[in-house]
């Protein structure tokens, strides 16, 4: 009774001592005097949470059952630590540069900050760790009962042990909440916790060494005698199965890297990469010492204790049976230390993962767009952490109550190892292979996790618990090759080796295959390069585009997550950095990409990379939130560029139209000017003959003595002028008729030559113009046409007369070229004069247009009439500006269309 009370007292005192150590360490760290807290010795000792109660008690039991096999659990980590230059160096570097908070965060960060992956790894970790926590609680309870047993106080012990696990669980949860969530350190480092663990590491090593020394030199007669006893014992021969030896070594190495608690102390709590250098030899040394006396203790226990006693508790029961109560209590404390340190760190690591990857994303989703304005994020994170810690520890307790204890301790440990080892392919692939993709990681993890559950985890509960006996014996759905412990029909393998082999093999194959087949997102590729090349460069993850972020808002948010003073310090430092060391006090840093990136890293230390990114993104705004969104923006930009191109084309077209309109307007204006000019011209034209007619008719009327010659002369002047007037009016009338489409065409057959002959002779009759040589090719002209030859002749006469009138060459020549094909005839009139000025070319076909008024003979209606006639005849007349002289081209069909003659008025300008 007394011993039991002493035990409870010592236990409580030890717990209080741990609280005190953690408290002192926290205070020292807060005052900046914590350098010694972060020495490589403390780092090495903190790694010792690898050695849990399973190691402390279980290794001896393991040795008593299966001989030397237990040592593989230490050999794996030894090789990993000694090979730090290969792997751990890179892992720690990545963890530090990327501000990784947990193994789930690492995997998520590597694969494009995928929260889905983080959630997957978190679930895996919770499933794998919960039995382990239960195991620790069980070991404390068992050791307590062992004490009671040896003192024959079963009744007492039964009462106590009912509540032992619960008390221990509550105490551990309290400790973890107190020191694990005191503040949200940007580096996620917990000085108090680490210091307490280091102390516990010393305690458990000392306890085990004390028992070992007692056994070797107290009970046995020194080293030689002990070795002789070992050889004589039932485990005195080498009986280790080769497959298990290799598999367990590998498995323990994998677990050493992947267990959440190991990752926490090794990577997250690491404050200086140089500590690895010391730990590379010191931690293997620690493991060596931890395992040194395991076999002697086991052999001595087998020799001295009754066969019914639990070999898992030899470390405790051996001193008890020898009456060494003080040593037994020390040993108990050692086991207690192992259990508590494991639970504390595991709960801390798991709570970080659960709160960062499950609780916070959910909370953020529920509070979209209010990261900096609603509630206290820092408070939320802390509460989430605390609840997670309590939840994880409670889950372990629940598992312990449900399972009822009793299973061999080592079995659960190895199952948990195998579960967490499923992360190994993804972790290795992520660190060394840039081609690893998110989808591949997801697929690999799913396959590995599923197989582990199917072949190892579920069967471990015993037949019929979660897995019906029929499934175990006949396979899933009756498929024999799906038997959980003989996949693909390969029987007779040790279940653990079987499960590890198949789950990791298929996990890795799936991971690699899917990675090869899939294409990573840009962010994944960026992160992949960062991780794989971590040792070559210390570059930054990905840059924020500068701009819209509001520093004040960021400050508010950072304060809530980092804490007011820490955030202020960070912002002050950043301002100083930006200003080159002479910043005004109170000045906030500009939201440069550089600054945003550092802020994001700082935040990711508290809430995880994905959450931090999302939070900064909410404040910075949509312009540069994620590469995916950036790509969306780029798409939009591309669309906008396309749209603007279209706009540009449209505007070009518009400006072309405007140009045309302007030209048309100019033409109209000039036409109007032309018309005005002609109106005055026509007035003049009409007035001149009218004036002379009036004047001479007045002379004839009023003068009495007009001679006959004079009378003759005057009346012929009047007549000539009247003819001229009539001709002018005829022209006008002709044009008007043609324009209104009221002309009647006199269509008949004839040859082109006739028309040209008539025209040439008619045009030659004028007297005042100089003669012109007409060059023709009669062969070409003998074409029979069906058209109105009077009208066509009118056109030809006009063209020839014009050439006579306007050709300014010394020897005026007019060349008439005729070409024809099936469709029509083309007659060119080319003179050798100086042609028509380019500014007049547009106007020559207009009414009343005259190229050179000073030489005008007619009213300027000729070409206009010609055009109207040609249109009536189904052809056209045009001016070709290509040659030196004036070049008119008349085209007309072989047969003039009948209908055109009677058509409605053609609209002309």
């Amino acid at each position, binding site marked *: 009774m007394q011993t039991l009370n002493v035990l409870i007292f010592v236990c409580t005192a030890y717990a209080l001592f741990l609280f005190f150590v953690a408290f002192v360490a926290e205070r020292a760290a807060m005052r900046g005097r914590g350098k010694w807290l972060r020495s490589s010795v403390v780092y090495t000792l903190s790694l010792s949470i690898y050695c849990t109660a399973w190691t402390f008690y279980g290794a001896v039991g393991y040795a008593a059952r299966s001989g030397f096999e237990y040592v593989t659990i230490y050999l794996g980590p030894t090789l990993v630590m000694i090979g730090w230059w290969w792997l751990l160096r890179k892992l720690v570097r990545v963890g530090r540069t990327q501000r990784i908070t947990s193994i789930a965060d690492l995997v998520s960060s590597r694969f494009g900050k995928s929260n889905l992956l983080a959630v997957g790894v978190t679930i895996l970790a919770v499933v794998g760790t919960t039995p382990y926590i239960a195991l620790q609680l069980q070991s404390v309870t068992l050791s307590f009962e062992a004490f009671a047993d040896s003192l024959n106080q079963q009744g007492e012990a039964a009462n106590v042990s009912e509540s032992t696990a619960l008390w221990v669980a509550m105490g551990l949860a309290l400790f973890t909440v107190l020191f694990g969530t005191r503040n949200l350190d940007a580096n996620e480092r917990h000085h108090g916790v680490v210091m307490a663990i280091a102390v516990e590491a010393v305690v458990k090593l000392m306890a085990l060494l004390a028992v070992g020394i007692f056994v070797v030199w107290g009970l046995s007669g020194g080293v030689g005698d002990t070795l002789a006893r070992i050889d004589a014992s039932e485990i005195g021969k080498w009986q280790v199965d080769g497959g298990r030896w290799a598999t367990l070594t590998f498995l323990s190495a994998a677990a050493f890297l992947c267990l959440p608690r190991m990752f926490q102390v090794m990577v997250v709590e690491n404050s200086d990469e140089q500590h690895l250098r010391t730990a590379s*030899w010191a931690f293997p040394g620690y493991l060596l010492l931890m395992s040194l006396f395991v076999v002697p203790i086991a052999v001595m226990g087998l020799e001295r204790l009754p066969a019914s006693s639990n070999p898992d508790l030899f470390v405790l029961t051996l001193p008890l049976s020898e009456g060494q109560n003080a040593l037994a209590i020390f040993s108990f404390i050692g086991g207690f230390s192992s259990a508590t340190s494991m639970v504390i760190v595991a709960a801390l690591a798991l709570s970080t993962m659960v709160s960062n990857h499950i609780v916070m994303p959910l909370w953020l989703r529920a509070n979209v767009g209010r990261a900096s304005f609603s509630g206290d994020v820092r408070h939320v994170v802390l509460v989430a952490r605390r609840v997670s810690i309590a939840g994880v520890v409670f889950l372990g307790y629940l598992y312990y109550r449900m399972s009822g204890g009793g299973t061999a301790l080592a079995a659960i440990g190895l199952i948990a190892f195998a579960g967490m080892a499923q992360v190994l392919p993804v972790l290795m692939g992520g660190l060394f292979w840039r081609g690893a993709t998110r989808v591949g990681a997801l697929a690999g993890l799913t396959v590995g996790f599923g197989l582990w559950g199917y072949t190892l985890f579920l069967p471990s509960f015993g037949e019929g618990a979660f897995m019906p006996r029929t499934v175990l014996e006949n396979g899933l759905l009756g498929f024999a090759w799906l038997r959980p412990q003989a996949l693909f029909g390969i029987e007779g393998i040790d279940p653990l080796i079987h499960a590890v082999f198949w789950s990791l093999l298929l996990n890795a194959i799936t991971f690699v295959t899917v990675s090869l087949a899939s294409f990573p997102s840009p962010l994944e590729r960026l992160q992949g390069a960062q991780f794989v090349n971590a040792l070559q460069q210390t570059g930054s993850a990905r840059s924020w585009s500068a701009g819209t972020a509001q520093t004040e808002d960021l400050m508010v948010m950072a304060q809530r997550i980092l804490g007011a003073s820490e955030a202020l310090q960070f912002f002050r430092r950043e301002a100083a950095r930006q200003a080159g060391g002479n910043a005004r006090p109170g000045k906030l840093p500009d939201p440069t990409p550089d600054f945003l990136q550092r802020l994001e890293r700082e935040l990711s230390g508290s809430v995880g990379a994905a959450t931090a990114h999302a939070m900064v993104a909410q404040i910075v705004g949509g312009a540069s939130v994620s590469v995916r969104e950036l790509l969306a923006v780029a798409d939009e930009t591309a669309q906008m560029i396309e749209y603007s191109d279209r706009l540009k084309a449209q505007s070009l077209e518009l400006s072309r139209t405007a140009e045309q309109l302007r030209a048309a307007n100019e033409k109209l204006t000039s036409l109007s000017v032309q018309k005005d000019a002609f109106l005055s011209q026509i007035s003049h034209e009409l007035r001149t003959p009218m004036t002379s007619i009036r004047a001479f008719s007045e002379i004839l009327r009023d003068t009495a003595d007009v001679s006959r010659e004079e009378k003759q002369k005057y009346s012929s002047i009047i007549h000539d002028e009247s003819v001229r007037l009539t001709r002018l009016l005829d022209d006008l009338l002709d044009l008007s008729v043609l324009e209104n489409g009221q002309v009647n065409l006199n269509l008949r057959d004839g040859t082109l030559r006739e028309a040209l002959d008539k025209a040439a002779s008619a045009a030659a009759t004028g007297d005042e113009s100089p003669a012109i040589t007409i060059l023709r090719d009669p062969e070409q002209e003998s074409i029979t046409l069906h058209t109105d030859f009077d009208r066509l002749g009118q056109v030809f006469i006009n063209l020839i007369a014009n050439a006579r009138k306007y050709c300014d060459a010394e020897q005026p020549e007019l060349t008439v070229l005729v070409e024809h094909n099936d469709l029509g005839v083309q007659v060119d009139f080319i003179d050798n004069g100086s042609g028509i000025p380019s500014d007049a070319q547009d106007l020559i076909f207009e009414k009343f247009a005259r190229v050179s008024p000073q030489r005008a003979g007619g009213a300027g209606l000729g070409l206009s009439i010609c055009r109207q006639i040609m249109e009536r005849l189904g052809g056209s007349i045009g001016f070709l500006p290509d040659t030196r002289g004036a070049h008119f081209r008349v085209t007309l069909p072989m047969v003039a269309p009948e209908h055109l003659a009677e058509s409605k008025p053609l609209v002309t300008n």
Partner: protein
Amino acid sequence: MNGSPRKMFVERQTYRKRRMQDAARFLPVIGLVLFLLPLFWPRGPEDGIAMSVAIEYIFAVWIALVAGALVLSFLIKEEPALEDGGAPEPPRGRND
């Protein structure tokens, strides 16, 4: 002519440093091989190797590995000036 004594010295130092890094990489490999050597041992309750021999062998290898790692950890104590790629490593201190 090419390479003053000083430069020679630096190169030699770098060379040694790299070889020590090689040794650090090599150590776990040899450790693995030595730890897997027991796979060849005869086993069984009758003709298995004596447990004491096994213990002595494993712990001897273990101690040798720890000692090797200890020596190497001092030999590559200086910051590796050059990485494998030959690119100078940026300063490791974090300034944020």
